[in-house]
Every structure is written in structure tokens, then in C-alpha cells.
């Protein structure tokens, strides 16, 4: 069966993670599941790069990590959006909107 799922454009994973965390703190697995579901299974989140991305965001202070217990009583690391992360998301989202609008404009030209 041909794979119709899309690869993530470079650099958008951070944006998607931040967006996914706006509702509630989540652990890594939940984030990957959510991205998969919300994109209606069209986005291929490379699971191997999810964790390095999470660690990078944590280091920059945009998300913070806490150990908690998952729904089935297992220890899991939960990531939550920080205030800095919220600001970052806002500016990234805006930049993204402008970028996609511009790209769409160009693609529509012919």
C-alpha cells in the first residue's frame, strides 16, 4: 500500500509540539498520538526525532517536564507549556501563517 503520509517540513515539529501542549500537559507518547490523530493520520511524526525535540524545547525553557502518573498508573514524563513557550508559539504560529500564505500565493500564480 502506498504511503500517503507526509513528512514534516524542517522545523515545524517544534511548532506542532508547542501547539499540542496548549490544552494540557502530555507525555511523549500522547503528543505523538495527538499529532497523528489531529492531522487525520496524514502527518508522519518521526518518533525518533520527537524526544530530541522535546529535550531541545525543554532546554530553551519553552516547555517544562515533570514526572507524573499516566492513566494506567505508570510513571511518565509530562511536558507542559511555559509562559515563554506560549509566547514562542504565538510568534511561531504567526510566522507560519504568513509563510504558508506566501507559499500558497506563489503556488496559485500559475
Amino acid at each position, binding site marked *: 500500500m502506498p504511503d500517503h503520509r507526509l513528512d514534516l517540513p524542517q522545523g515545524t515539529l517544534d511548532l506542532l509540539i508547542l501547539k499540542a501542549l496548549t490544552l494540557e500537559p502530555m507525555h511523549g507518547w500522547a503528543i*505523538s498520538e495527538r499529532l497523528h490523530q489531529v492531522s487525520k493520520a496524514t502527518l508522519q511524526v*518521526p518518533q525518533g526525532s520527537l*524526544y*530530541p525535540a*522535546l*529535550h531541545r524545547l525543554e532546554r530553551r*525553557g519553552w516547555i517544562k517536564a515533570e514526572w507524573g502518573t499516566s492513566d494506567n498508573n505508570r510513571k511518565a514524563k509530562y511536558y507542559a507549556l511555559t509562559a515563554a513557550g506560549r509566547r514562542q508559539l504565538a510568534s511561531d504560529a504567526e510566522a507560519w501563517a504568513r509563510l504558508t500564505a506566501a507559499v500558497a500565493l506563489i503556488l496559485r500564480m500559475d
Partner: protein
Amino acid sequence: MLAEHWADLRYRLRALFRRSDVEHELDQELAFHLAHATEQYLAQGLDPAEARRRARLEFGTVDNTKEESRDRRGTALLEATLGDLRYALRGLLTHPIFTAGVVVALALGIGANTAVFGLIESVLLKPLPYPHPDQIVSLALIDPRGQVPGGGPIVTDRAFAMWQRDSRSFAALAALSGGSAVLTDAGDVEEVSGAEVSGDFFSVFRVTPLLGRTLSAADTRAGAPPVVVISQALWERRFGRDPRTLGRTATLDGVKREIVGIMPSGLQYPSAADYWIPRDVSPGTGNIVAFFTAVGRLAPGRTLAEATAELQAIQARAESALPPRARGARVEMLTLHERLFGSARGPLLTLLGAVAFVLLIACTTTANLFIARAAARRREFAIRTSLGAGRGRLIRQLLVESVLLAALGALAGLAFPVWGTRVLTAVIPSTVGHVPATSLDAWVLLFAGVVALLTGVAFGLTPLASLSWSNLSGVMKASAPGAGGGNQGRARQGLVVVQLAAAVVLLAGAGLLIRSVAAFVALDPGFNPRHVLAVLVDLPRTRYANDRARSTFYDQLLQETRALPGVVVAAEADAVPLFGFSMITRFGVDGAAPVGEHVEEAAVNRVTPGYLAALGLTLKQGRWFTPADAPGAPRVAVINEAMAEARFPGTSPIGHRLFIRPPPDTKPGTLPDQPLIVGVVGNVRQVGDQIEPIPEAFFAAAQDSAAAQALTLRTSGPPLELLASVKRTIATIDPSVAVWVGVDLSDVYARTYADRRVDALLMSAFALVALVLSALGLYAVMSYLVMQRTREIGMRMALGASAGQVLRLVIRQGMTSTFLGLGLGLVGAFLLTRELRALLFRVSATDPSVFALVAVVLAVVAFGACYLPARRATRVDPMTALRWD
């Protein structure tokens, strides 16, 4: 913004210091993820094993994810470097011989550089240890001929008095006369060096005494009580740091002086002085001119140039009263630092250049060893590459290793500056004068660190050039020792070429300096300085105001020293070679008054008959003086060859008469008896070897009214052993007479070329190290190439190649490198040896014979280095070679 940085820092610190916690959390996190994924597949109805497999497959390599996550923590570089360091240390410890070889080579290179830098720092870069040292200047008056009489930077008492009276450029101006004195109380009799100084001396240096006071103008006045200021060193040595030393007396050359001050060890002028005694430096009324060393402190805001111009103007005003030919003396003013160390700059920078070449050779040697080791480690690198180590990672590993080695080398090399500068300062005292103690201060350490780092990077990167990365994976398959080795063979040969070239440059430099020394030694000074004690005394002007009083003193001195045991011949003269001063007078010949431009100038030297034997002059024609050449006898003269050639070319001067313009106080009409030339002696280099002998006329001292002033003794034993008894003799004749100079003439003579000898010695040592290292490098590369080509050689021999052909094959390869290095080195030497020009004597900077000899020496040594491996190649057994794998 700040908060972000703070989060970043906190995160990194935790990652670094709570590493195992962080690692554990990462493991747990990933395990949690995989468990969820597995559950999902289980829920879809897959069996547990398959579910786990799918989950893992989807996730990718766990280790890669971990590694990447670690990288994202931002501490990866540091952690990996620490890992590399541990790994490198382990690697070095398992190859102790390699490690020791590299560390020794680098210790030599870095250590020698650091030692020379330490010397340069303390001599050239550090300011003198006095307040505002740039204001302290040294003054000299250079006579119109451009020569400094006596060789040192001196001024006359008259000029000094004039400057002191008229100049407004100085905060303080002082004259001094350095010398030595015999200290006869407070323990053993000891000769100590020190100076007689004018009242302002201590205002020039502005050094506060440890105890007591300094000297002032009041101390120099006639009738002032005799006092002395001593050094901290003498205070510690002779008085045991006793604070009650002040007020005690020290007997210097028989004069009891009250100790009024103790100067800290920081005051080192004159160098290593132990005492300073006051002296009135104002000119006397007689016609004797006293010479002093002069130092001054510029008034705030005055520049060296302004002060020089002012003194020059004062000098010109004074000279307007003199006849034209006596005018034109030049005032030379340098900062004291420049005066003391300026002449050391050239030799020191040359030394630095030479040790830089030694470092270059040490680096190439090390790089060569590294390449050899890298070749042995190709398999290791290949394995690491296939396990996912990136190219950058391997480069980092190599750099960590090489910098670690360089650091070890530097550490070992730091022992060098400690004893290296001690050796250097011991052998070059006359070049550098007093060398301040070199210590491992921050600058020297920084220098060593930077050199080590650069060195490590430089030789650490060379093996990279030789490893062909694209082939690395192929290496694992290949097992022949030389597989893919052509590339490194070339790299190593390239390094050998560089080494040989550097060795050629050093050899050429050493060769030129050795030839300079040889030219010096071969030079006949015209006298024999061995076993000669020269003594110059200072007659107090008040008591020896006229010629008669002086003659009486000198006659008695000559009589009594002649009788001393150990004295072979005693003589007196105006001038002792290399020392003392000659008067220069104009002569006519045979009644013709010296007029116009075509008259001869000659140095006048009034001597006693013993002078010829005491100094070992050679009589060329006629006769020398005898005791019969007394006041009543006909006046006679002996001239030197330079004068004979200038005035009597092609004929014998004997029988001609010199014509001397009568002194101004001669009664008109009475012409003094004109001296008859009775002999010709060989030239004596009175001023030193650098200056060609000038015409010189000798007269019998007994027939002249003025006395000769330098005592010259040929001794049977070491001359300085006699100095004490000569001083005692002088004290018995007149205790107020001080010995101004008492030297072993061979010391003075050796000093005239000691610098050259030391330069040549050091350069030769460096060149020898360079030659040995590069020969070893060539030998190692040739051995390696022979080993690498064993199979090929065996094949050739199996196909009928003779031993001679194999020998030629290998030697040709080695000699190609040799000639490349030789050519490169000769070009480099041609360009660089001109920097040595100031240090050369009677040798051109591109002397063809030296260059040719260097080429021959290098070629012969290199041939030897190639021949041994080549011989080994001829013994290759074809069967062994073919079975090599």
C-alpha cells in the same frame, strides 16, 4: 531573554552533573513510549513479539534517539571531549614508547622556545625595576671618529660638568665610575664590585633604601667623612642582616667608611654592585681628563630627543673654542634599558628563530610518528566509522590526543626554562649584561600554553590528510600492512622534506657562525693576551697634579711589582690592548711639520722596555727599546707596521725621524729632539678585533716627561691571583690610590668574541638536534617504505633483479626526498641567513663554501639514513615476501 538563558544554564548544569539521573529518565521515557506503542499493536491483535518488533521498527534505533536527545542537552561536546580525553590517555598509556618519544621531542621543542621566550621577556620586554623606568637614560660622548675611546659609553668630566650646569632637561643627572674594591673587614678579604657615584646618583634611580639613607652631594665634598652605601646582598653575606650594621665601618681598598645605607636588591646598577661610594666628579685643574659613565632621569614631559638636542647644543657651544679637528663630538643618549640590553636584541631574536625551527622539526617528527600510528589505527578508525562515528568525531579524537600530548610535552618542557635560562644566562653574560632572574611568570606560562596548543593542532591534523576517508570502510577488508598506504607514504615523505629543509637552514646558520668564530680565532691580535694582568690606577688629582709626582709614583710601582713573585715581566704604557686610552697625534717625518691633509695621524703609546715581552709583540725590523734609552740618550721611537706602510711604503722607516709639533708651552726657538725610528713592530689590535689596526708610534717612557699609566704584568700563573698583592703594593706606596681596573687580559680578549662563540655554539647544538631528528625521520620513512614494498621487492628479486638494482631503487626514492629538502632548505637559508649578518665576521651571509659543506653533510647523512633500510631490502627473501599476508 534572561529567563531563557537561566533555564538553559540550569538544564545544562543538571545534564552535566546529574548525568546518571538524566540518563535514567531518558531510558524510562523511551521505555514508556515503546510500551504504549506495543500495547497499541497488541490491541490490534498482533502477538506480543510481533507487536514489540513493530513498535521498535516504527520508533527507529533507540540508541540513535538517545544519542540525539543527549546532543540536544547541549553538553554533548564537553561530555564527548571528556570521553575522548579518557580514551586518549588510555591509548597513550598503552603505547609508552610512542608517548615518551613524542613527549621528549615536544618537550625539547616547546621547552627551548619557552626558555628563549622567558629570556626575551626578562631582557627585552620587562621594564627596568625602577619608578618610571622610561625616564632613565644613559649618556655618552662619541668622539668625531665615531669611536668610543676605551669601548664603553663614557663622558668626560668636563662635558658632564657642563651638562650638569646648563641642561634643563633632567630631573637628575649623575656620573659614576664602576670598579671593584677589596673589602678587608667583617670576615674574609673579598673583592667586591661597586661604583663611585656623584651626588645625584640615587635621585636618578629613586630606589628607597632598606635601611639608612642614600648618598647626597654633601657626601662628595672634600673633607666630608668617608661613607658607603652597601647592597642588600653584601649586607646579608657579610653582616648577617644585622640591623645594627648602620654606623659600622667597612674598609674598602684600605679606606674605613661608615655604612650609612643599605639598598634593596632591586637596585642593580652597575650590575651586581655591592657598594656605592661618593665621588666628586667636578673637573680638576690639571690636564688629566677623567672619564665617567653618565646616567640621568629626564624631567617629566621631556623626551629623549629634546634632551639629546639640548646637550648637543651645549656641546657645540663648548666646542666653538676648540680647533676644528677636535670638534664634532656627538652626544648619544639611549634609554638605560636600550643601553643595557639593546645589543642583546639581535642575538636573542636569532635564537628565537633557531628554536622555532627546532620546534618545527619536533612537530614534523611528531606528525610523522602520528601518521605511523594512524596507519596502525586505520582498523580502529574504520570500526568506529562503521559503528556510526562521524568524521568530525574522529577528527576531534585525534585533536584531543595530539593536544594532550603537546600539553604533556609542554609540561615536561617547562623544566627547560628553569635550567635552560640558567644555562643561557651563564653562557651569554657579556651579550646581555646583567640578566634579570627569569621566572615562570604568567607570560611565560601563557606562551608555553599557546605554543603547545598550536603545536598540538598542527601535528594532530597532519594524519588526517593522510587518511583517505572514502577508503576507510575498505580498510577492514584489507589486511596487508601497507594497504592504502601510498597516501601516507607521500605525507610522511613530505614531512621529511620539510624536516630536512629546516635542518639545512639551521646547519647553514651554524656553519656561518662557526666560520665567524674561526675567522676570529685565526685573526692575529698582534699580542698574546694569555697570562697578562693589566692594572689601571686612579691617581688623586690633588696629590698628583704634575708629571713629576706621577712619574715618581709609577716608577716606584714598576720597581716594586717587578719584584713580586709570579711576575715574569713588568711594564708600563699609555695603552694596554683592548683597554685604556691612546692619545692620537699628527706626525710629520724628517723635519717636515705636519701640515695639510696629508699628514699621518697615529696613536701615541709611551712604554717601558718590558712592554714588548709582557704583551708578546713581534719585532719586525730594527730593535725595541732598552734601558739604555734613558733621558740623556738620543730620543728613539718604534712604529707599527700600519704606520710604516702608510708613511714609508716600500722602504725601510729605520733611520728616519718623526716630527712632532712642539707642545704649546715650549719656549720659542727651541725644538725638542725629534725621535729616531729604530724599529718596527707588528700591528696590535688596540681597540678590538672589529677595528683594523691604526698607525701607532711607541716612545720610550723614560724619555718622556709624562708617565705611562697602565701597569702590564706578564705572570707565570693565573694573572688574577696576583691582583691582591699588586693592590697591597699600591697601598704601601700610597693608600689613597685606588685600583680602577685590574683584569686578566685574556678575559677581556675572550669577551670580544665570546658572544660569537656562544651564538655559534647554540646554533650548532640546535643544528645537530635538527640533523639527527631529520636523519631519524628519513630513516623511519625509508624503513616503512621498504616494509611496505616488501612484496614488490620480493617479486622483483624472484624475477631476477640483482641486489644492486634493489639497493638503487630504494636509495633513489630516499634521495629524491633528500634533494627536495636540500633544495628547499638552501633557498630558505639563502633568504634567512641574511638576518644573521650582524653576527657574522668576515663571512658573507651566503658564503658558498658553507652552503656547499652543508649540502654535502646533509647528503651524506641522508644517504646513510637511506642506505640501511635499502640494505635490508636486498635481504628480502622472495618466498617470505610472497607469503607476506
